[in-house]
């Protein structure tokens, strides 16, 4: 019996609620929580009459995803699940009703069996309340399935939510916001590499085993198995393997513009992400692609997993403008 993994937590079952208390205490100017809705957080600024309510959500353990992206110009509210578990329908309903501005609700979240079932139940419940709710699933994880519609949603969420949130902040109607959200998702491609297993607060054991000296290309943000396991290679080789696949998937013509996210899965520090970026930009230059915007850091994590992911969003003028739109969230600000 090995020692439990090293975590600064209390009771593992209380981790999510304690984290939420800490977040609400740290960011009162950005976030509030409706009464009797312990797992819903709403933006102080943002939700308003006549505006489409963008409601995101999913399991915990991916911070700053999801609730860090709740704020003016981005998401209006988020539903918070247990660690790696979709929230039940009620928090999604609570979040939607608190953010509802009478112009409809758009649910956006990663494409996982659990999330789909729970948010669909939430949509049915909202319908009974006379609130129209639509859904756009994110499916940017190139490694998770050959068929785009069956792919999981991972770090690309940041760009996809950002585009939809900007559209909603511009007071576009639900049809338009939904169209833009689907468009943004269709043009976003992510692939990750894991260097260690994460461990759940409740078990404090590695969720899977990845021996030292090994890496797994394409692993999901919950430890779902990836496309290839092998010896850990130098950063440039790892980047090349991922970029080869991403560039082939994206199939953007020379001269195209992209948005780039170099994301930490949790335990990998900035130095390594920027070392990766040095190689990424070389590859993009070789492909004659220009980078309109770069984000580097922990944007979509997998608890304490070591590793990183690269996201490319193939921009057009519409998406570029939406990414440039200002936003002010507790954990993500721009413009």
């Amino acid at each position, binding site marked *: 019996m090995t020692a439990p993994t090293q975590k600064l937590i209390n009771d593992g*079952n209380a981790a999510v609620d304690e984290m939420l208390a800490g977040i609400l205490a740290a960011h009162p100017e950005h976030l509030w929580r409706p009464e009797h809705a312990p797992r819903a957080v709403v933006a102080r600024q943002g939700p308003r009459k006549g505006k489409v309510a963008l409601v995101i959500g999913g*399991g915990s353990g991916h911070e700053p995803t999801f609730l860090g992206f709740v704020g003016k110009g981005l998401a209006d509210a988020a539903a918070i*699940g*247990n*660690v*790696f*578990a*979709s*929230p*039940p*329908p*009620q928090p999604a309903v609570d979040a939607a009703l608190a953010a509802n501005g009478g112009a409809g609700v758009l649910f956006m979240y990663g494409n*996982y*069996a*659990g999330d789909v*079932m*729970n948010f669909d*139940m939430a949509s049915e419940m909202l319908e009974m309340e006379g609130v129209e709710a639509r859904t756009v699933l994110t499916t940017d994880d190139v490694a*998770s*399935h050959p068929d785009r519609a*069956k792919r999981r949603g991972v770090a690309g969420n940041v760009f996809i939510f950002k585009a939809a949130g900007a559209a909603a902040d511009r007071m576009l109607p639900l049809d338009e916001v939904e169209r833009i959200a689907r468009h943004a998702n269709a043009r976003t491609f992510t692939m990750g590499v894991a260097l260690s297993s994460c461990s*759940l607060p*409740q*078990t404090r*054991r590695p*969720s*899977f085993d990845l021996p030292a000296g090994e890496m797994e290309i394409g692993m*999901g943000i*919950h*430890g*779902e*198995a990836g496309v290839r396991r092998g010896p850990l290679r130098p950063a440039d080789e790892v980047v090349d393997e991922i970029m080869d696949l991403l560039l082939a998937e994206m199939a953007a013509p020379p001269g195209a513009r992209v948005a780039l996210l170099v994301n930490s899965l949790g335990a990998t520090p900035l130095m390594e992400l920027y070392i990766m970026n040095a190689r990424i930009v070389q590859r993009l230059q070789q492909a004659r692609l220009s980078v309109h915007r770069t984000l580097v850091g922990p944007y979509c994590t997998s608890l304490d997993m070591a590793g990183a992911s690269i996201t490319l969003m193939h921009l057009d003028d519409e998406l570029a403008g939406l990414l440039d739109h200002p936003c002010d969230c507790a954990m993500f600000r721009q413009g």
Partner: protein
Amino acid sequence: MDLTTDDLVEMFRKLSVRMATERDHLCRLDGFAGDGDHGIAMEQGMQAAHLAVTGTEGSLQDLFNAAAKGFLNAVGASSGPLYATALLRAGKAAGPRQTMPRDDLRQVIAAMRDGIVHRGKAEPGMKTMLDAWHPAAEAALAGASPDAIVTAAQEGADATRDMVAAMGRSERLGERSLGHADPGAVSAVMIVEEICGTMRAEA
């Protein structure tokens, strides 16, 4: 002796204890192909279901409905909606009665299977909990003995070892999901066992 609401409360107590005991085992199983949390979901879900039924006055159906709501709100995830729907269907099968013949638990098992199918849209062979629930339900409806129903569920769960996941978090793992049983199917066998134990408990 017929099944009373107290018997039902006792059944959820046993389920809650059972899932707590098996938590880490189920998490490990989920780690091979999924996200390693199935044991936590089942522990929290059954604990909440037991808490809900102990706090509920009313018919067998009222208790099943309370269990469904408690399970769902505590868990979310995949298991939440699946077992919430299963328990709601179980309540319908039990109906607004204070007691029912224990043999009617056969309909309860079948109704749970139906609820899981309705919610999850999976089919047998996709390496899900359905691969345990479906044979169990068929055996229950065919009048098999409680032991035979459990055996059917167990054989169904064992068979998932040779299946490639085609649903849920663990979809598209190829080799890695092969060789390991589906955690949801394994926990399903435990639930079927407790229900059949209750069915058996004549006198």
